[in-house]
């Protein structure tokens, strides 16, 4: 823009006029509608007004900025003085009278123009001049609330020509003002845009016919601007597009792209942009047009337009890539890189708006939110919630989530392994049909077993017996360990027909296991620890397991907690797999439980069985116990501070194998043999293990035979409950021990595996952490 020097009077006058035209109080842009009115009031020929608008740059910019407005006013003044409109004349013409604006449309206008003209040269009267115009304008324009100020007078002018082009379609009354108010979403304004919002329309409508008719001839002088054609081409649907009023010159480019619709329809659309309560509302015609365009790209209306196709399509609109990118961001609601019909319409609408000069919003307007119903509702403000949510949901589901929050890395291995272990342990260990509760289960199961005493003993013990023997040999693999543990236990069992004999072995194993787990072996030796809440508490259950272990030397050590002396023995297999299935912590708990069973054994007559276990464990499981201890320690290390575990292990080891603790870490892999001891909870087990270990050691030796006896007598236990308490107890203990041993074995093995995995992970992490430092 050429520099514009205004005299003081001019400055003031222009400023006032600008304020007047600044209906939206933007302080920067004058409402194009008002400006248009003003220019019309200047009583200049239309072509002159057009020229003025072009010169001032409003056409280029698409809106009337303050400078444009001032320039325009100056040009108006120049024109009114009869001078040719030149850009140079802006500054060269001296002593230019202030532009006069005459409202000739109606009496009010004339009154106002009179005011204007009379006071044109009087700065003081500006204020007086100013007020009337608003009223005038209001009258003329109806609702002044142009939401978008960019309505250019040029556009208006062009639009005004539209009625000329298609006079039959829209009442000529509406052209300008109607156009100006295109943004008002008065949907029903197709016919009489003036009938739109506000009382202002009424007076204006009266005046309008006359004025518009008068204006029509004026405007008709304008050749249909290419914009119209652009819009026409842009919208081949029957008139309604409110946005048509906006056409900026750039829309011309779209002619090449869009199919050329009838000019009339386009004009009509433009004219009927009165549906502008919501500036972003899509009228029916517009929507139909958009849908048609969508079909050209994607025949399936429920399908998507891929990003590349959409990019091509919208690039044709010649908008800058940055703006297209922003439009895409706004319209791709579900961020999936593809456009649904709704999204496409929204994007299209935004493109049209932008080309017509509307600034792009920061957020997607509500009326453009993707709707669920694509075709039916068009101009109605869509129900965003449903559609948006649904499309959003779909979109988000499909949207790439490259950074999905994942669980803490440290946990996955453990978490993953637990279910596997559980399953495996169940499969392998469970011989007895008794359901096993993996996590807090041990205690519970042990209790159950304790209660049952009878039939369960035989069955559970057998698998338990089978498993332990293998324990000593095999390493590392939980299943293998389990089996071995079970084998060792079973060996211990088998070696003695009763739990009485077994307890010793079992006890040894249990003690060993306990040393691993920290609980079971210890539990048997000392007096049973105070009853703890069993079930569902891994830690407590671990203790309970110890107790149950101690309690059920004869039993299969299935019972997790043997609080009541008569806790029926759980089926041993249930115990066996139980501990193993837990997560490391739980496994420890289980193991603890299993270990508690042996611990509990001393309390009960079953205690004798534990000695069997121990003996058995000692015999067959020494190595494995070491391994188990170490593995347990590893597991513990992984899950808890290794120190506690190792100390636990050490404590346990003290009972039997005292050198195992140090080797905990390295020997994790294969150890987990002690079938009886699930990875012990560090502290508790430590205490218990210490306690249990010693007595267990004693008991185990005694109980190995007992265990065998118990095992043998298991079937008879229920019968002899009342009679042969000792036998029952022995069998119970044996079963318990077996169960606990197996359970512990399972859990230990599982834990070992997990420990190894965790260790690996931790080592890797440490390595990574250390790496940067190595560089420093």
């Amino acid at each position, binding site marked *: 823009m050429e520099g514009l020097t205004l005299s003081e009077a001019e400055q003031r006058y222009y400023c006032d006029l600008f304020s007047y035209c600044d209906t939206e109080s933007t302080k920067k842009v004058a409402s194009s509608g008002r400006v248009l009115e003003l220019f019309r009031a200047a009583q200049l020929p239309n072509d002159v007004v057009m020229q003025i608008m072009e010169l001032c740059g409003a056409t280029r910019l698409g809106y009337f900025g303050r400078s444009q407005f001032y320039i325009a006013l100056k040009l108006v003044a120049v024109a009114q003085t009869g001078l040719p409109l030149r850009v140079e004349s802006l500054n060269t013409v001296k002593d230019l009278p202030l532009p006069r604006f005459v409202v000739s449309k109606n009496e009010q206008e004339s009154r106002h123009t009179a005011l204007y003209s009379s006071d044109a040269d009087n700065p003081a009267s500006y204020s007086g001049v100013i007020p009337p115009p608003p009223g005038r304008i209001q009258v003329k324009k109806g609702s002044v609330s142009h939401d978008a100020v960019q309505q250019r007078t040029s556009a208006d002018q062009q639009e005004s020509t539209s009625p000329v082009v298609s006079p039959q379609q829209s009442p000529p009354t509406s052209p300008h003002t109607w156009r100006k108010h295109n943004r008002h979403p008065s949907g029903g304004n197709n016919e009489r845009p003036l009938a739109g919002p506000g009382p202002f329309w009424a007076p204006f409508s009266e005046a309008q016919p006359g004025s518009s008719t008068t204006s029509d001839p004026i405007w008709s002088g304008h050749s249909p601007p290419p914009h119209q054609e652009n819009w026409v081409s842009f919208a081949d649907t029957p008139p309604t597009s409110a946005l048509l009023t906006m056409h900026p010159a750039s829309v011309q480019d779209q002619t090449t792209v869009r199919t050329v619709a009838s000019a009339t329809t386009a004009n009509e659309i433009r004219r009927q942009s009165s549906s502008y309560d919501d500036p972003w509302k899509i009228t029916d015609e517009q929507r139909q047009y958009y849908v048609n365009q969508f079909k050209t790209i994607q025949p399936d209306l429920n399908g998507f337009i891929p990003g590349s196709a959409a990019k091509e399509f919208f690039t044709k609109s010649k908008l800058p890539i940055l703006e297209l990118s922003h439009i*895409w961001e706004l319209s791709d609601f579900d961020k999936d890189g593809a456009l649904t019909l709704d999204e496409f319409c929204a994007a299209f609408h935004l493109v049209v708006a932008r080309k017509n000069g509307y600034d792009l919003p*920061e957020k997607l307007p509500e009326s453009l939110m993707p709707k669920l119903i694509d075709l039916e509702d068009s101009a109605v403000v869509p129900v965003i919630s449903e559609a948006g949510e649904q499309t959003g949901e779909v979109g988000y589901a499909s*949207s790439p989530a*490259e*950074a*999905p929050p994942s669980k803490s890395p440290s946990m996955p291995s453990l978490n993953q392994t637990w279910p596997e272990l559980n399953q495996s342990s169940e499969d392998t260990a469970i011989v007895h049909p008794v359901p096993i509760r993996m996590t807090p289960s041990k205690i519970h199961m042990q209790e159950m077993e304790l209660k049952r005493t009878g039939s369960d003993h035989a069955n559970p013990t057998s698998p338990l017996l089978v498993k332990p023997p293998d324990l000593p040999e095999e390493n590392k693999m939980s299943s293998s360990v389990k089996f071995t543990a079970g084998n060792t236990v079973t060996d211990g069992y088998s070696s003695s027909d009763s739990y009485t004999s077994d307890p010793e072995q079992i006890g040894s194993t249990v003690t060993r296991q306990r040393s691993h787990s920290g609980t079971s072996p210890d539990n048997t030796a000392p007096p049973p620890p105070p009853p703890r809440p069993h079930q569902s508490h891994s830690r407590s259950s671990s203790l309970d397991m110890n107790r149950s272990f101690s309690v059920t030397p004869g039993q299969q050590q299935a019972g997790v907690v043997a609080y009541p002396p008569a806790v029926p023995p759980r089926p041993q297999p249930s115990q066996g797999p139980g501990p193993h299935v837990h997560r490391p912590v739980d496994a420890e708990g289980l193991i603890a439980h299993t270990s508690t069973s042996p611990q509990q054994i001393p309390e009960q007559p079953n205690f004798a069985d534990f000695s069997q276990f121990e003996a058995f464990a000692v015999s067959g499981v020494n190595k494995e116990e070491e391994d188990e201890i170490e593995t347990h320690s590893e597991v513990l290390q992984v899950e808890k501070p290794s120190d506690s575990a190792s100390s636990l292990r050490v404590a346990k080891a003290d009972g039997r194998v005292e050198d195992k603790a140090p080797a905990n870490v390295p020997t994790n892999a294969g150890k987990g043999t002690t079938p009886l001891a699930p990875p012990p909870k560090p502290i508790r087990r430590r205490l218990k293990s210490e306690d249990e270990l010693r007595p267990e050691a004693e008991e185990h030796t005694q109980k190995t035979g007992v265990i065998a006896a118990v095992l043998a007598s298991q079937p008879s236990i229920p019968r002899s409950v009342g009679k042969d308490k000792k036998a029952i107890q022995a069998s119970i203990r044996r079963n318990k021990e077996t169960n606990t041993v197996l359970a512990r074995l399972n859990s230990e093995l599982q834990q070992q595996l997990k420990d190894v995995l965790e260790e690996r992970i931790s080592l890797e992490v440490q390595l990574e952490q250390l790496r940067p430092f190595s560089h420093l």
Partner: protein
Amino acid sequence: MAVCIAVIAKENYPLYIRSIPTENELKFHYTVHTSLDVVDEKISAMGKALVDQRELYLGLLYPTEDYKVYGYVTNSKVKFVMVVDSSNTALRDNEIRSMFRKLHNSYTDIMCNPFYNPGDRIHSRAFDNMVTSMMMQVC
């Protein structure tokens, strides 16, 4: 919190960099540049390590007396570097991770935009808003 957030492309040129105290912008630019070395180091160190969120988040790259620098790398070797003021009561690691996650999500949204050519500078307003929100909450 974050006083500077930068998105670095695979070829180690910045796609987006923004600092809050604009007067020290150059210093932050330099900091981010030097942190790239540490990022590369960590990336190469990881090597074949399992690719998961943990790996994407590099953690504290290096601390200085004034601020700490955190790094995050995507699978396509696009790096996010965040400079955090040390004076802010140490942001928890989780918070940093969540911030990086948001950054990553916004970045993927940008990628979905067909009008965005990978390798271009990022001009997205939505991304700007998100970054502003992250930086504002810090201050």
